[in-house]
């Protein structure tokens, strides 16, 4: 182990992009976060039996009867031999010898507590199901057979040789990751006489939150692979499409499922007609029945070949794109018999049970949107909100998707780690405050700059390191540089750091730099805000602490999913939703026992049927309406955007069960007008988009203060007199009833925690 660590440390010191001193000498490396899988040996006294079985009596005498110290090196070498190609390193925790007073008996050997073993995997071989041994007629075959016991069998291979081999049962990717567990249990039982009950394996406890379907369905990696296959097939069909006025040159996927990081990837579905209302060849959701299953449209961007004939006017470009969508739908239907439904800004294609959303992109459109004619008649290019959105979607997102796709091929657990991280964030009701691309980049950072660890080979350890990153990184003073495809050199990095320090107050609160996006951190430009970032940091450190306690203590039987349940007692109003109308209920952390039929047949597809109901999620529509109804005219934040940094210095008050945080006015407010504009919103809404049943509402305290009567601030408020002056105060009862009205049919009840706030 010392050799391995020394080699790794040399690599880190040689790498100039990482601060070697900080990484090597100041970062603690607990076993839980260093090793991919760990397991505990609960009953240390069983090692006595080991000594007898492995005939270590002479070593026992050497150590004066300390069977733990005698048996440990042999066990480690046994495991290392069993995991020969899979594991780079097998290590154990150092036994802690407790102190004892001088006049008492020394503690027995078994009182040192449970032993922990850690395994570091080689990603390519860790999940292979076959252990190939020597040929049957070699003398080593006998050794192999005695080592593996009854599990080894004679098998004939494709190259004609007959060898001893051990085959492990595993079909899905997550089961394959647990093969080392099977190996260890078998070997320890066979050679060291340690029963299975003494081993507590903690390699994969967290994966149940990203499991879809029934238990044997695996954690969705296979589903994503099939989505990507279907997408490849569609893109080939698009390239070869004839009779288009301009041929398709590039097809790029933009949806997270196409970069393996969608939390619950889509499964092929076919609608059941009787469940829906039909109205002239349209399938519509019906009001009486539960809401149909959510079918997510997988967005794809198509670039056409260059041509000088595109119009230079915004309205005309939109209409030309609509004409292209119509044409694409028509041709796909004729030439490939795919069901399509064109719309103004996209075309939906139903293929293999998935729905793909094609959008045509013209590369000069953002430029044309940015054109502004100054009063002197000069043409200037200025970034507008619309052009920014368009650029993000058509230029940057496809590039990010393809880079992360490449990263997934290098590190097979990248997708699962990212999915766990996103699931945790949305379980803490913060999924709308931090974008998916941001989380993907954070997880990519863990794989690209893992110093002082090695890149993770199991989703659980990746998730723990993600929580650690969120909790301990100094967001205020350091940019997080993610070196995708090694596009950045050392001088670039120092450049980025210098510019960051110089412009800190204008930049977003969380700064992520990638090779293509070195100065502006486009993914975190609007979210998260400073308060949300503080909350994330707090939640991450608490969750990490709780998880570490649970996982390092083999005798604890607490539910590991505790960190995926948000503390609800801190919010002001809770809106309970009707479970029938939540399409993604099955994705929730505590899956309901009975599930409702949602009008689709899973895992089947058909041709020539009516188009299913796509992208219909009542809860998201409701949330949009809620946010708009409590919003006010938002002023602009400032020239370059970005939340005011001063909020990072606000105090936080923590209590035992959850967290309460208050905003206190910090020092150096950017400008009072901006502050007032942002706090005109009445409330913040939080929701877990994967099947949450509750929407949590937090009132903004500043907006509850009575304000003088002004036409512009009169929204949802009522007029009262306070000290003989006309002021307006939010009309809270009416607003609460508005929540119910706007969500007619969806809202089961609105629970207002009136003991927490007064007007």
């Amino acid at each position, binding site marked *: 182990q010392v050799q391995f660590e020394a080699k790794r440390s040399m690599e880190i010191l040689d790498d100039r992009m990482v601060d070697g001193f900080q990484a090597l000498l100041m970062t603690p490396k607990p076993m839980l976060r260093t090793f991919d899988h760990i397991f505990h040996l609960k009953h240390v006294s069983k090692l006595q039996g080991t000594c007898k079985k492995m005939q270590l009596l002479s070593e026992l005498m050497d150590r004066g009867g300390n069977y733990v110290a005698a048996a440990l090196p042999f066990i480690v070498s046994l495991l290392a031999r069993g995991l020969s190609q899979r594991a780079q390193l097998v290590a154990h925790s150092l036994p802690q010898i407790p102190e004892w007073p001088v006049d008492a008996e020394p503690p027995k050997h078994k009182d040192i507590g449970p032993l922990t073993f850690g395994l570091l995997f080689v990603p390519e071989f860790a999940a292979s199901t076959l252990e190939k041994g020597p040929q049957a007629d070699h003398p080593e075959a006998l050794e192999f057979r005695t080592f593996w016991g009854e599990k080894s069998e004679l098998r004939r291979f494709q190259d004609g040789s007959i060898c001893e081999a051990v085959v492990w049962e595993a079909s899905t990717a997550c089961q394959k990751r647990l093969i080392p567990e099977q190996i260890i249990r078998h070997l320890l039982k066979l050679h060291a006489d340690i029963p299975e009950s003494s081993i507590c394996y903690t390699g994969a406890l967290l994966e149940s939150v990203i499991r879809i379907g029934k238990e044997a369905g695996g954690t969705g990696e296979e589903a994503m692979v099939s989505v990507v296959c279907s997408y490849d097939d569609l893109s080939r069909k698009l390239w070869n499409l004839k009779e288009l006025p301009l041929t398709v040159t590039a097809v790029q996927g933009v949806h997270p499922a196409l970069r393996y990081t969608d939390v619950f990837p889509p499964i092929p579905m076919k609608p059941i007609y009787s469940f829906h209302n039909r*109205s002239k060849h349209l399938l519509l959701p019906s009001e009486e029945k539960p809401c149909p299953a959510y079918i997510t449209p997988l967005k794809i961007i198509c670039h056409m070949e260059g041509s000088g004939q595109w119009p230079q006017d915004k309205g005309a470009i939109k209409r030309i794109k609509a004409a292209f969508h119509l044409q694409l739908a028509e041709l796909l239907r004729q030439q490939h018999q795919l069901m399509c439904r064109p719309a*103004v800004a996209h075309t939906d294609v139903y293929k293999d049970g998935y729905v793909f959303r094609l959008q045509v992109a013209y590369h000069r459109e953002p430029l044309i949107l940015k054109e502004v004619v100054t009063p002197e008649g*000069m*043409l200037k290019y200025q970034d507008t909100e619309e052009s920014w959105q368009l650029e993000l979607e058509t230029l940057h997102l496809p590039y990010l998707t393809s880079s992360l796709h490449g990263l997934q091929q290098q590190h097979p657990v990248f997708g699962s780690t990212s999915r766990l991280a996103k699931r945790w964030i949305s379980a803490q009701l913060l999924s709308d405050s931090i974008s998916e691309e941001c989380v993907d980049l954070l997880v990519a950072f863990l794989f690209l700059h893992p110093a002082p660890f090695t890149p993770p080979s199991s989703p659980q350890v990746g998730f723990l390191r993600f929580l650690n990153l969120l909790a301990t990184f100094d967001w205020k*003073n350091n940019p997080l540089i993610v070196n995708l495809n090694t596009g950045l050199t050392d001088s670039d990095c120092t450049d980025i750091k210098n510019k960051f*320090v110089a412009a800190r107050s204008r930049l977003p609160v969380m700064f992520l730099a990638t090779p293509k996006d070195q100065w502006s951190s486009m993914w975190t430009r609007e979210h998260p805000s400073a308060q949300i970032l503080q909350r994330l940091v707090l939640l991450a450190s608490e969750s990490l602490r709780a998880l570490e306690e649970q996982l390092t203590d083999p005798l604890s039987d607490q539910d590991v999913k505790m960190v995926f349940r948000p503390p609800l007692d801190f919010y002001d109003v809770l809106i309970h939703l009707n479970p029938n109308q939540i399409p993604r209920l099955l994705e929730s952390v505590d899956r309901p026992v009975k599930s409702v039929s949602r009008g689709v047949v899973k895992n089947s597809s058909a041709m020539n049927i009516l188009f299913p109901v796509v992208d219909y999620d009542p809860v998201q529509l409701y949330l949009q309406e809620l946010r708009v109804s409590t919003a006010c005219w938002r002023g602009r934040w400032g020239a370059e955007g970005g939340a005011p940094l001063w909020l990072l210095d606000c105090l936080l008050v923590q209590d035992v069960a959850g967290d309460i945080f208050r905003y206190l006015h910090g020092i150096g407010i950017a400008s009072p007008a901006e502050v007032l504009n942002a706090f005109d919103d009445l409330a913040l809404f939080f929701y877990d988009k994967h099947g949450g049943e509750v929407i949590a509402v937090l009132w903004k305290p500043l907006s509850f203060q009575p304000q003088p009567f002004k*036409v512009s601030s009169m929204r*949802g408020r009522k007029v009262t007199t306070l000290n003989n002056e006309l002021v307006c105060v939010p009309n809270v*009862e*009416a607003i609460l009833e508005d929540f119910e009205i706007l969500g007619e049919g969806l809202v089961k009840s609105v629970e207002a925690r009136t003991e927490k706030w007064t007007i």
Partner: protein
Amino acid sequence: ALAVKFSERQRSHHCLLVKEHQVREGADTAHPPRRTLFVLNVPPYCGPDSLSRLFSRCGHVQSVDICDKPGPGEKKDKLASKFFDHKTLKGFQVAYVVFRKPAAVQAAKALSQEGPLLISTESHPVKTGISKWIASYEASIVDPKELKAEVDSYMQDYDKKVAEEEAKAAMEEGVPDEEGWVKVTRKGRKPGLPRTEAANLRVLEKEKQKRARKELLNFYAWQHRETKREHIAQLRKKFEEDKQRIALMRAQRKFRPY
């Protein structure tokens, strides 16, 4: 202030504030000053038909205009396209209700004595929630033929417009206006520079470079003194910046062995 409720079941009400519409500058034709009621705090589920129904008891309603912010009304003469001009969701809004007779405005102001008005009743229910979302999903499905027809007609108009502009530009080429100036456009024999900011900056850069070449920097005695003074000032400034940077680094230092 008028109290208004969504339906019988609600216990509390919103207050619609009404006022006679007066405008300081000019008169706009859309909201004639003596006949218009200015309504504030219109809830999002109250549409123009509900408002006209509510106020129809005061007098005949000529038109209702709902907007986000109070401002002069504009007559929308181009027909907004059903497909391309998206209506975004609105929160609490502001409305202008135009009556046919001015007396109705006074009657509306007197309405507050009666009980709260209901927006959605049995005879005219207002859809919210699931039914509204299903309806809007249905409305969002586009008929390809309609879309194609509209796109074709728009592009025909656009092509015609572009062709007209080109023809006009070609006609005006080289023709002096009344003072004798000839406009330089991109089409003529001598096209000028494009009128963009980038081109402007390029020209200015070139000018600066030319001037810099002709300048003599070491000629006068005061120039020597000035360069030395500036050099020292710059060094001082850099030193201050470095001091601040080092102070920041020292404050952030995490390894404190003492």
